[in-house]
């Protein structure tokens, strides 16, 4: 018999198959890797991208030339652009804003197939630090209410190139799903006087059944109400609402946690396609839209979704996902994965 589980943050329900669920070998989602020929993200192709807005590069090398480790460029054909003024109009019951925003691409490494699990911790520390710096820079623009950092790997996850990259799209509105998570966290905080994420981490550590990996500062686990098989969350153990306040020790711990977690995922599922998204607080300029005390009731974290199932009519219609692998089973495979 299956069961319904409720996510304590958003109140979202999921259906979990509690009978013998699908095992890792039941899924096949290996990426069709794209060749490196003519890849605009490879070293030597700097002329194919817009000018870099930030880079980690060797001393004595010039911008937009070889000699970099990480490059950040604006999207050449962005959906939202920073130029212009933001006007907000109402037309009857309809509402519109100008397409103001920002869209940056972080080229994580020079290696076309140099994936997270294979990189050094130092390389991942530089990457996480780049995430922090770019989010901080974008959030200085008070027209931008939220910056979504996300990573797509594989065509099913929305990636068009195999070369590892992360994107940030900053929007002039706080996305509905982010608002729902903030409001849900606030409701819990009002009732319990504690952060819901801190309580989730406490519960997970108490039971251990869904933990994938933990170090001194970070934990990764398959959430109780996982929407997808092998869904994982990575969160700081110490309460922190805003990712950009991460310090250097936490950056190193996150790099370690991310690397080990991804190694375990690869060891369990081969080479799955996946998305990684960051959930953090909106820009301070949006604080007025939400209950006061965001820094107390929200807790930043990363979510990882291997692309193993399809979202179909039931999920679109109800928002209820059907997960054929209980998170306890997924965590067990991941815990036992030899890396």
């Amino acid at each position, binding site marked *: 018999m299956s069961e319904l589980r409720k996510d304590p943050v958003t109140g979202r329900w999921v259906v979990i198959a509690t009978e013998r669920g699908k095992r890792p070998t039941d899924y096949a989602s290996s990426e069709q890797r794209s060749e490196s020929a*003519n890849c*605009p*993200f490879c070293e030597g192709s700097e002329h*194919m991208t817009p000018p870099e807005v930030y880079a980690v590069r060797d001393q004595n090398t010039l911008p937009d030339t070889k000699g970099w480790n990480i490059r950040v460029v604006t999207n*050449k*054909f962005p959906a939202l652009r920073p130029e212009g003024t933001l006007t907000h109009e109402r037309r009857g019951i309809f509402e519109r804003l100008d397409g103001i925003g920002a869209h940056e691409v972080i080229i994580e490494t020079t290696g076309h197939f140099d994936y997270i699990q294979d990189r050094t911790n130092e390389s991942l520390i530089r990457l996480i630090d780049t995430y922090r710096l770019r989010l901080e820079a974008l959030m200085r623009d008070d027209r931008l209410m939220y910056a979504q950092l996300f990573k797509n790997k594989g065509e099913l996850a929305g990636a*068009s*190139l195999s070369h590892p990259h992360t994107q940030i799209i900053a929007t002039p509105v706080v996305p509905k799903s982010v608002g729902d998570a903030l409001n849900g966290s606030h409701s819990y905080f009002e009732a319990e006087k504690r952060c819901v994420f801190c309580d989730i981490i406490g519960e997970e550590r108490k039971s251990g059944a869904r933990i994938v990996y933990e170090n001194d500062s970070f934990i990764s686990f398959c959430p109780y109400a996982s929407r997808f098989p092998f869904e994982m969350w990575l969160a700081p153990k110490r309460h922190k609402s805003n990712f950009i306040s991460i310090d250097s020790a936490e950056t190193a711990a996150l790099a370690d946690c991310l690397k080990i977690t991804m190694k375990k995922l690869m060891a369990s599922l081969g080479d799955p396609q996946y998305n990684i998204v960051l959930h953090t607080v909106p820009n301070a300029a949006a604080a007025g839209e939400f209950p006061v005390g965001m820094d107390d009731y929200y807790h930043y974290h990363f979510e990882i979704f291997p692309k193993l199932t399809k979202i179909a009519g039931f999920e679109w219609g109800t928002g209820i996902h059907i997960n054929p692998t209980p998170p306890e089973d997924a965590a067990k495979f991941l815990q036992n994965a030899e890396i």
Partner: protein
Amino acid sequence: MAGYKLLVVDDEKNKGLLYEQELEDEGYEVDIAISGVEALEKFKMNSYDLVILDIGMPEMDGLETLGRLVAIDNSIPVIIYTAFPSFKENFMSWAAEAYVVKSMDLGELKLKIKEVLGE
């Protein structure tokens, strides 16, 4: 604008002829290719100042054609000219200098050609 030679690649022959006529009226010399394969052949045999490239084409689509064109000569600018804005999400489109979504009149394309050619 005189003297610029353009290669227009579109699998719909009638559209290609329309673009040819309109762009010749603007003073450009225009060659037409109706497939990615034909485009590559012409690109190798001739000297162009600009390529205007459709994406949705059978056999070799525009993005693959684009990759092959820049591998031959990445100094010749390419304008992607497609009915679909969604190919912007494909980072291989970054090999193009510009991306214009097709519309009934060619005004935006003509402006972009002038911009890319620095007219």
